[in-house]
């Protein structure tokens, strides 16, 4: 028989899908199960109660791929319950032996009790309803409390309102049951009073237990976290006062270009990242991508990037990041020393400016078969809807690469170039550089490059993010 391991209700159903689920589970035709159910329903409503119980406790098909314990009916205890209710149970599974679905058992017992009592009273038997009804209510209350407790133990993250409603329900049920017990006692004596008192205490205790457990656990976790934070702060303070100072001193003494300064700077950055936990929540943030990139390039080149970012945090646009990477690499290779990177994320456009104090770049002097700058910086940004300008840096020395990307272009549409960055009003410097704005204006021209590498390397680096 192709039976399901647990009773699951199919998504396509006539009433609640219970009969189909049971039929699937037992490998019995649905019609047979439905007939049995109808017959049971005629027996004083027992079938209806059973149906309701199964409906409430069995999961829906898709959610049942990974049946949670409290929702499955295949553990031995569960199957015994369903057996008692007139249904042979499914085969027990070893790994499920450990935790019985107490909730379902208790709820089931309560319902069976109610059904049985109804049938009995219909048949004229004298049923002590004064005892049965409170008993059932107590069972149901305990079941709800247990369910909540099991959730907590399993680390289940029940949502707040659900938990509150369930707990309140459990509390009310237990209290009501016990009160009924007490009130309906016809001849109250010392023992009934004692039993009632103990019951109330137990009931309340049971309901409150999950909260107590969780409170204790939260308190412990909080204390542990606090201790960790305090310890970390202490270490951070110490490192800050000793190692960072020394690293700063090494950099100050050694000069930006030296190997020692480079190492000290790399160490300082690592330490600082750890100390101040600067890793942002969004790893794809443009500023943090650039920072990471700067760190990687600094490791391989005698260069010191001074990265200043202004404005809101934005996800890194691939084109701008790749072009910026190329500009930074060029600055590191051909200029070195102090290179400043300025990123400003405005409302309308993102501007990234890489400035070095190197020998400057002359786009005209670059061999036409080299693709580097034209393709990887200017062409790439133009395709993305932005502009790139390469010209002399501050005071006419060095190189300044100014990349501008309209914010609109960072969204899906790479259409329509944004406002061109205002051209830097630089007096004619000693470096015979071509005004950069002319470069993007003529992308069809065979591109040139000052890069010693074949052009493909730039494109390859695009994928190999640090």
């Amino acid at each position: 028989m192709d039976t399901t391991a647990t009773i699951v209700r199919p998504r396509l159903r006539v009433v609640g899908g219970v009969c189909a689920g049971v039929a699937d589970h037992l490998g019995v035709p649905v019609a047979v199960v439905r007939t049995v159910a109808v017959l049971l329903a005629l027996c004083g409503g027992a079938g209806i109660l059973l149906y309701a119980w199964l409906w409430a406790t069995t999961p829906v098909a898709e959610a049942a791929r990974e049946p949670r314990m409290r929702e499955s009916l295949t553990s031995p205890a569960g199957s015994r319950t369903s057996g008692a209710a007139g249904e042979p149970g499914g085969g027990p599974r070893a790994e499920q032996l450990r935790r019985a679905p107490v909730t379902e058992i208790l709820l089931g017992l309560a319902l069976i009790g109610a059904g049985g009592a109804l049938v009995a009273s219909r048949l004229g038997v004298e049923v002590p309803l004064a005892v049965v009804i409170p008993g059932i209510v107590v069972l149901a209350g305990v079941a709800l409390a247990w369910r909540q407790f099991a959730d907590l133990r399993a680390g289940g993250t029940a949502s707040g309102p659900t938990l509150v409603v369930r707990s309140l329900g459990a509390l009310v049920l237990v209290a009501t049951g016990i009160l009924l017990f007490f009130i309906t006692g016809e001849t109250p004596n010392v023992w009934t009073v004692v039993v009632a008192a103990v019951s109330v205490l137990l009931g309340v205790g049971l309901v409150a237990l999950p909260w107590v457990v969780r409170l204790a656990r939260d308190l412990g976790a909080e204390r542990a976290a606090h201790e960790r934070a305090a310890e970390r702060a202490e270490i951070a303070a110490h490192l800050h006062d000793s190692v960072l100072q020394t690293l700063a001193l090494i950099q100050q003494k050694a000069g930006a270009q030296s190997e020692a300064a480079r190492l000290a700077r790399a160490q300082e950055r690592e330490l600082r990242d750890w100390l101040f936990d600067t890793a942002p929540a969004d790893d794809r943030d443009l500023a943090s991508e650039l920072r990471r990139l700067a760190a990687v390039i600094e490791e391989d080149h005698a260069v010191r990037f001074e990265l200043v970012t202004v404005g809101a945090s934005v996800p890194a646009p691939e084109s701008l990041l790749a072009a910026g990477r190329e500009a930074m690499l060029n600055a590191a290779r051909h200029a070195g020393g102090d290179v400043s990177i300025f990123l400003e994320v405005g409302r309308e456009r993102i501007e990234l400016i890489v400035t070095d104090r190197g020998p400057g770049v002359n786009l005209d002097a670059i061999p036409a078969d080299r693709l580097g700058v034209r393709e990887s910086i200017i062409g790439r940004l133009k395709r993305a809807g932005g502009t790139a300008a390469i010209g002399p840096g501050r005071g006419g020395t060095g190189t300044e690469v100014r990349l501008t990307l309209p914010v609109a272009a960072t969204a899906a549409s790479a259409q329509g170039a944004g406002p061109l960055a205002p051209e830097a009003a630089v007096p004619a410097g000693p470096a015979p550089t071509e005004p950069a704005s002319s470069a993007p204006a003529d992308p069809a021209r065979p591109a040139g490059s000052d890069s010693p590498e074949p052009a493909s390397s730039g494109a390859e680096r695009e994928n190999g993010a640090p």
Partner: protein
Amino acid sequence: MTELRIAIVDDHSIFRSGLRAELDAGLEVVGEAATVDEAIALVGAVRPRVVLLDVHLPGGNGGGGAEVIQRSAASSPETLFLALSVSDAADDVVRVIRAGARGYITKSSSGAEVSDAARRVADGDAVFSPRLAGFVLDAFGAAAGETAATHDELDRLSQREQEVMRLIARGYSYREVATELYISVKTVETHVSAVLRKLQLSNRHELTAWALERKLL
């Protein structure tokens, strides 16, 4: 040119001696201090023109460099403070600036850079590191397009001030900023001083909230 009398306040003797050895000849180190209390006593006693002040200092009431500035004001009003920090944390730096420091530079700056900054402070100018300039642009909402309408508005930067700050954030020296904007170096200094004043007096909540939130100045 008379020698500029400066004091170095830092709790690390290795840093003090290192900096002392690196400073230009025109600067005379008249004293060193390692704690808040020592620093206050020193400033009161020798009255240096410029104090190179570490942001983080032990002692006193735990206020660090800011406390030194505030408590020294009475005993030596003519002393100016230049904050040195290794932390780069915005809240630290903004605190000393608001306490009255005339500028801020990082500890990894070279001896020549520190000397230059000290001279500039002695001349009454403000010293902004690129990162401080970037922070100012952010804190005053320049990136979001906020621009002061009147000159005496404290909570926003004027168009010109924003331009100056942008260039400083990009590593330009005052002279380079002046060339770039076709203004005199003195005008650049005026703008920077105006920004420093706003930084010290403004009540923009970003100045404090932002600094606490993002420690990346």
